[in-house]
């Protein structure tokens, strides 16, 4: 798909959103019989996160560790791509999530192990961002002390303007896609990755849009937790 079709002359995107609009977010906690669990929908991306722990660590590590397992259901993606599962991309995602949440865990929480299982039921772009948001909710649901929420959002750049929260069609066309995860209170960025090329002059606008996206998501997650 050419990049011209992603935003119509009227300024609408393929799924009818405005450029600076996120998809509909729905989240809930306490879904399964686990220490903590959450379910999150970001548009058509849907995933379940379960958290077990903290429990005593098996290896002699004075810090607390988080084990993350990332699973993609075989019916999750548009095509019947069996090879997508268990591949390196999923590993990369779980490493990213581990690093993010180990940094927000309260430090005095030593010698313990927390297991996080992420199960993607449907993927329609922004899976990593959704997984980070889901993990954050599940950790809070499990009562694990973290210093702040971590929220994540994607942003891209096409037709000379920044767009927020890309879906699969936008993600897979020739569009730079930036994933950002941050702690919403002090806006410290915990994760950032971008695929594709983008001029430095435009980078700032994309990044700030992603940041506002993270804040929007934070409000929605916070509402879900306080309910």
């Amino acid at each position, binding site marked *: 798909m050419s990049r011209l079709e992603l935003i119509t002359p009227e300024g609408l995107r393929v799924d009818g959103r405005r450029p600076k609009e996120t998809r509909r977010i*729905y989240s*809930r906690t306490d*879904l*399964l*019989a*686990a220490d903590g*669990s959450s*379910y999150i929908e970001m548009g*058509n991306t*849907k995933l*379940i996160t*379960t958290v*077990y722990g903290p429990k005593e660590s098996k290896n002699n590590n004075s810090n607390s560790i988080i084990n993350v*397992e990332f*699973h993609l*259901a*075989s*019916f*999750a*993606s*548009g095509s*019947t791509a069996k090879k997508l599962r268990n591949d390196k991309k999923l590993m990369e995602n779980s490493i990213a999530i581990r690093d993010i949440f180990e940094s927000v865990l309260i430090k005095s929480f030593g010698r313990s192990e927390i*297991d996080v*299982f992420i*199960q993607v*039921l*449907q993927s*329609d772009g922004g899976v990593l961002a959704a997984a980070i948001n889901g993990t954050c909710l599940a950790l809070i649901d499990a009562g694990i002390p973290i210093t702040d929420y971590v929220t994540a959002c994607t942003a891209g750049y096409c037709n000379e303007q920044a767009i927020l929260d890309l879906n699969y069609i936008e993600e897979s066309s020739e569009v730079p896609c930036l994933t950002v995860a941050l702690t919403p209170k002090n806006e410290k960025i915990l994760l950032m990755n971008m695929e594709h090329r983008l001029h430095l002059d435009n980078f700032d606008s994309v990044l700030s849009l992603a940041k506002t996206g993270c804040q929007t998501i934070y409000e929605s997650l916070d509402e879900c937790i306080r309910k």
Partner: protein
Amino acid sequence: MISKVEKDYISKGIAAGIRNDGRGPNESRQLELETGIINQASGSCRVSVRGGTEVLVGIKVSVGDIQELDTRDEEEEAMKNRADVGRIVCSVECSPSAKIVLDKRQIEEMCILYTQILNRTLNGPQGGLDLYKLCIIPGSVCWILNIDVLILNYGGSVFDAIFMAVRGAIHNTRLAKVKVESTDGAFDFEVEDDETEVLEGRENVPVAVTAFQIDKNHVIDAMPLEEQCSDSSVSVMVNKHGKLCGVQKGLKGSLETSLLINMIQHCQNKGQEVISAMDSFLAQEERRIIDLVEPVGFR
């Protein structure tokens, strides 16, 4: 592992006709069923049993080659007939959250076992589905139903829930209509996107009922603790006409024939009940889908 005292407590309770959660030996737990919750799949179904078990099934259909036949097989005659049927490929996966009850190896074995039983049951005449209808061009192209089962939560009697969810998902599956054209002997086909049809024979798909033997008694729809008390289990696949579609003995113990027959009989009767309960659920779901009411899903 379960302690001796607990085991004794549970089995004596069952001998007296009372179970831990207040059910009778022949009573199953309340269940919820919902179809069509994954819009990227051709058919999907979620079954959740009160008390924990949660199973999600997604079906994706694809067009594929009819398998190259293996002629070294002794049943060559039977295989010849297979050139004009579609096929069903099942896979069972367990979400790691079940690791808390079972260890990794047990989970793997369980998944392999269930995958095989599903494949065997659904690909034969006992599976109910009309496999001939899945054939597009005899000898070359057919539909393949990829049935993927995901166990989200382990709360006992997973196998029964899997079969129920598979049956629900098959009921929910819509196949695109195919137009076959023949131009001077060569066949060609075209998939029509806007017209769909249901799977032929979907109401004849069996369900499974598993009985767990505990001492001289047996229970249906066991909880994980009861499963651990049990030495052997019998899973019976039964269709809506009450015909047996498969029997599978599980676990490590041995069974007397008389008890076994008794258990099978019991499961068969229970299966009928399950199917009629399920069919009313499915009819409800069908109405909901026609009314365009959004599924609840995991909300």
